[in-house]
């Protein structure tokens, strides 16, 4: 089956999203942190007058983060009507006509990733984890509701 994908990198992992679930990619955005918000929320982003909630991909998925020198990228998602963007380290490519078969997720995948993973694809010589928007939003809501310590005070910080 043929997929159109957006391929991203978080840490050393390759994460893919269906193109239909991505509205756009933002680089070099101003994120306004929200005081007392859970650590999985990076803050708020202004997209041409619309206010999006920026979710920190590495924190959400439990992956290490290695953003390039230019800073991370925002993937604006088109799920469930609510404006959200997922912060990833880098957007690698937008690919269409990816014909590779979707394989089931390997058992070594972390529980968090497994919740959102629709399958894995072999792209080139690297396995990419395909993530679906629906389960991802559920994970976001879940992670945000968990009674974790609120994020550290970042007084006066607006990156």
């Amino acid at each position, binding site marked *: 089956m043929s997929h159109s994908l957006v391929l991203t990198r978080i840490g050393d992992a390759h994460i893919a999203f269906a193109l239909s679930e991505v509205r756009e990619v933002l680089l070099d955005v101003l994120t306004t942190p929200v005081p007392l918000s859970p650590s999985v*929320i990076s803050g708020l982003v202004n997209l041409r007058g619309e*206010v999006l909630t920026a979710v920190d991909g590495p924190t959400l998925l439990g992956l290490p983060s290695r953003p390039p020198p230019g800073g991370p990228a925002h993937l604006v998602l088109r799920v469930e009507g609510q404006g959200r963007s997922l912060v990833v380290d880098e957007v690698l490519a937008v690919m269409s006509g990816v014909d590779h078969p979707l394989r089931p997720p390997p058992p070594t995948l972390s529980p968090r990733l497994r919740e959102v993973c629709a399958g894995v694809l072999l792209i080139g010589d690297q396995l990419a984890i395909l993530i679906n928007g629906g389960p991802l939003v559920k994970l976001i809501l879940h992670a945000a509701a968990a009674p974790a310590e609120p994020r550290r005070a970042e007084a006066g910080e607006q990156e």
Partner: protein
Amino acid sequence: MTDDSLDDDIRAEFRAESQEHLLQLEASLLDLERRPSDLGTINQAFRSAHSLKGAAGFLGRADIERLTHAAEDLLDLLRQGAAQIDAPATGALLAATDRCAAMLDAEPLPEDDPGLLALRGALLDHHARLSSPAPKPGQGWVEIFTAPLPSAARAPRPAGEPATEELFRWAVSGPEPAAELHPNDVAQAIPAEAVRPPALGLVDEAASAELRRPPPGALAQGRRERSLQQLVEALGPTAAPPAPSPPPAAKPPTEPKPEPVPAQAHADPTIRVDVSLLDDIMNIVGELVVARNRLMRALGQGPQETQKAARRLDQLTSELQARATKTRMRPVSAAWAGVPRTVRDLCSDTGKQVRLIMLGQETELDRSLLEALKDPLQHIIRNSIDHGIERPEDRVAVGKPPTGTLSLAARHSGGVVLIEVTDDGKGIDPAAILESAVRKGLLSEAEARGLSASEALELVFLPGFSTATAVTRLSGRGVGMDVVRTQLRQVGGAVDLQSVKGAGTTLRLRLPLTLAIVPALVVEANGRTFCVPQANLVEIVDTVRLEPSRLQRVGGAAVLRLRDQLLPLVHLGGALGLGPPGGPAVGAEGGAPCGTIVVCEADGGRLGLIVDALQDTEEIVVKPLSPELKQQGIWAGATVRGDGSVTLILDIAGLGTRARALGAPAPTAAVQRAAPVDPMLRVAVAGVGQVLIPLHPVLRCDDLQDITLHTQGALLLVTYDGDLVPVRPLTDELRAVVIFERGGARFALGVTEVLDVFAEPTRLTPGLGPAWAKASGLVRGSPAALVDLDTIAAELSR
């Protein structure tokens, strides 16, 4: 009216007699609900109204006379068989009956008393409605254009082109409620070969009549198709005059109308527009407001001409915004339309008798809020009737009239819509609430004892709460007030509850007037900016100008003495975790203050926000936040400012709750979960020790040297605000007085010394201590007693 005793006798007799008539009238009206065509009942109702009117006229009570006259006229109409009574008319008559009952005991009202005019107006409206030859509600309608066709449009159309415009202007009435026909539906339904019948000229005039829309939700698809069918048939190629084919209740167009004037009393020319179009317009207006803000900022320093142009743009934008907002406004009666029926169903199911009063139905609010209001309102009304209002025999047993009263009152107040739902039922017993909460494991017994009555009532809003001993079909498992509060919070509204055991309960709902654009004050705290909605704003206090003595800081809670109230203070930066709590604004024990205090109000409580600086007041476009941020409860939304930055909008109610929990030095998890710790006034009473007084009802504390005490026999009184307030001395060493409010009246306590404000959770044993104390125990290592203000108030009221 003289003070002659003869007059008194006559008046007393008039009152007694009128009361009987009123009871009879009410009974007849309730009867008529079940059997609307019973002529005997109608006649009886008419006679009662007639007698009332006569008696009122005889004694010169023009106010009662005018009201009963309107009622009499309406009943006369029914009596003649000219119309049949329906739910809205019965409601109006019942409301008038209630009012007359109240008026009997009161001073005569002036002719232009608004409440009286409204009631009378309602009765007249029903009279007009029921007596008009136009089809009645229940026979559905299509709302149509009422402006007559411009003459150019009357030019004959080529055959084959459906005369869509004219079709709009056609009234369809039938025994079944007609669908709300959309222009496209109509156009498609007309067969291509339909020829515009010459009789359409008359149709325009018929179309000019204002016709009413069927109640929403009363329409089914099948009926819709049938109405289209009627329409098509009627306008078919036979060119038959359209009007006679639907039931003759429609305006017969054979009757030439003198001018195309709408038949109904109030006929606004109306137009049907797709709601999504209105939403789009509103969005664009929102963006226009943002752009206007940016421009105003940039042009503020420009040359004279540019500034003039900018001001004009400002003015136009504001006007456009007001108009656009108005297109979305609908009267709250749209949300209340189902209430009379709900109430009647509930009454027949529970065997209770309820009189329903609805005031302020014309109060307008954004149409999206109407939907949000319906569910909570239904729930609240169910609770009132199911759990609040007692059975008639139980009511009589406690000296109440057998019929309970449920009133809905709506009004605008400072940028919000206030809706109060009041019942005169058995109220909510704080003790029962606490017991239930403990039983449900929501809090421990010790915690429950520490809560005040108002804190106990707040528990009702906790999820999974119910005091219903029997799960009824109607209200289900829980009181569900947490759902009500959540639903209202989601649209930016709020609800709070007041109740007096045995007397009744009032629920106050607040809804924003418009969701999209609100005025707000922009403040700075610890280098960040935030918006405070103007709807929550009470006033600003500049701390630089304050005497340090008015600021106190004790036990983690800072307090401001603002005129006669003690206001809890919250450092915004601290509460948001942006910097050290307490901050620079108030030094240790009232040092040199700096910053500004923004006094806010939400959910019935007030607090003062200490901020570093104020920026300005702006009209901001509110953007909703995603659920994971909404659930934090402290943000009402976000906005994009003129410079493109995102600023968060504070939810004052949520902030207050959270800040109170944070203010206590060592909040236990249970306290946070169950209820916030209300601040208390700590005083010294010789012979007792420390005494705690709940701060919220306290109006003022004074030293003896600043006030005057009077004695009146055994009573001790103090002057306050022009009144003489009774004082209950708690000790002989009386050197200070604390004045508080309870149930709308004022009382005072005589104490030895006012110490400070105290906001820590306490462990006091109830029932211990002096007779006037609710509980006693150790506070900070010394004996302390918590005053029961209700006991004191009751004592002083006798």
